[in-house]
């Protein structure tokens, strides 16, 4: 897992249909992918869901970023693949479950790449979630790129003092991260205190209710997207409940490594 993973979750302002979509409609879209990926273990269905996701990512002009996220999560994906083979699953199952992981990762990625944390916070607010909750969330998201820069700064400083992160056995390598983690935690705490000071000074929490300069409004195309998504969801649920999906197995048998033990 490298820092590349975070690239696919960082919001950048762009003018694409997906970016313009109301975050609530987007949430429903992404949740549908999510549900589909979780309830099905069938390779064909998962492949279909994955293939539907690609044009969505493409229309958000975020393919390159998404690829980087995939590269960042590749290690974990491979882990899932081999673990499944190890415990005696078929090749189809292993691929399917890896695909599931990829779809879940991509779903989150689509959402956060195209939704500003502010708008997401607004969506949560307008859904009547307590403000402190949505604010905590949006601040956390806003701080991710800032923290990533901090990590790099710390790594640079420690490498310049001769720290070699890749050197030594596993135990040594874990210990090498202490000079990275401690300053990171401390700088996070410092930053939080400064943010808290600024919040206090701008009357945060002053009144029980809070007004909002911007309100989210669903447009015609947003309702259309929600309708389409609902249809898609309906089809999936039908297929699931009535097992109407042909099962499919890749005709290659991989001996279970577990049998070796």
């Amino acid at each position, binding site marked *: 897992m490298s820092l590349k993973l975070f690239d696919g979750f960082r*919001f950048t*302002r762009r003018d694409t249909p997906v970016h313009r979509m109301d975050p609530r409609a987007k949430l429903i879209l992404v949740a549908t992918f999510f549900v589909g990926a979780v309830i099905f273990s069938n390779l064909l269905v998962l492949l279909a869901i994955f293939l539907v996701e690609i044009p969505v990512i493409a229309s958000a002009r975020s393919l390159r970023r998404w690829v980087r996220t995939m590269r960042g999560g590749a290690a974990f994906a491979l882990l899932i693949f081999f673990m499944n083979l190890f415990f005696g699953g078929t090749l189809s199952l292993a691929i399917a479950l890896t695909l599931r992981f990829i779809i879940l990762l991509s779903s989150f990625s689509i959402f956060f790449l195209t939704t*500003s*944390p*502010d708008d997401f916070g607004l969506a949560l607010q307008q859904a009547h979630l307590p403000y402190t909750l949505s604010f905590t969330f949006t*601040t956390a998201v*806003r701080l991710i*790129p*800032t923290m990533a820069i901090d990590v790099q700064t710390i790594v640079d400083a420690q490498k310049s003092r001769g720290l070699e992160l890749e050197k030594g056995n596993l135990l040594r390598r874990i210990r090498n991260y202490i000079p990275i983690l401690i300053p990171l935690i401390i700088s996070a705490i410092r*930053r939080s205190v*400064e*943010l*808290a*000071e*600024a*919040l*206090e*000074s*701008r*009357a*945060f*929490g*002053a*009144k029980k*209710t*809070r*007004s*909002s*300069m*911007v309100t989210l409004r669903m447009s015609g195309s947003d309702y259309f997207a929600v309708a389409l998504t609902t249809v898609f969801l309906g089809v999936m649920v039908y297929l699931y409940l009535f097992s109407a999906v042909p099962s499919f197995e890749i005709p290659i048998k991989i001996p279970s490594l577990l049998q070796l033990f």
Partner: protein
Amino acid sequence: MLVKLPIIEVKDLAFTYTGLKKPSIVDVNLNVEAGEFVVLTGPSGCGKTTVCRCLNGLIPHFYTGEMRGSVRVAGLNVRERLTSELAEHVGLVFQNPENQLFSLSVERDVAFGLENLNMPVSEIRRRVDWALGATGTLEIRSSAPYELSSGQQQRAAISAVLAMQPEIIVLDEPTSFLDPKSAKDILGVVAELNRKLGITIFLVEHRLDLVSRYADRVLVMDEGRVVLEGSPREVYGEKAYLIGVGLPKVSMLFHLLRKEGFSFNEVPITVDDASKELRRRLTS
């Protein structure tokens, strides 16, 4: 006869942070009149930030400790009012621009404080437009903080504070992270707020060469106490130098010349002043 009270009244103020043995500030007495531009300076650790925090309620409401004496801002007793109440009268701009901006667009950040006060949306929009205009940040209203230079970020932070329409704006070393040109620009914006809108300015600053032209009064602190007070001309002298204050180089130059036996009516605080005086003397 109605006597106008100072807009900031600090009497015998002392404060010790919880967990520390020594007080950070002791015997601080200062008054600031409405519309004044006051600069507070002094060596690191002399208590300047502590004083700033006492002015908007962060002390004693956010930072706990033992507080003695009294602080009144815009007629309100800081000890008895919540920070949120005081926020409409005293704004505080911090050193690091990055950690004062919460949203992904400047205008939402400027609206942030007003939203917290549950103001009607029309009023919020009006004030946001006004604050952005007053600080010259209308063009960057839709930008995200990470797209801006630190100078622009600091401007955005000032707009955010300004939108709450406080009578007083306190700034704690706002130019620390800025390069000289951005620092000069920011201080120009602050001076304009003082001149055009009559906002009282309480500025903590090391870069005296940039602020001297605007300051009505300069206060120097050392080891928790206010040790010098007066107009910049009165304060920029040997005593301030020995405390460790970084006087403008032109002021230092004239002090040095005085030591050589040359006499001048006044010690200049800006390059213009110095240039005029030297020109007068060299061509007479």
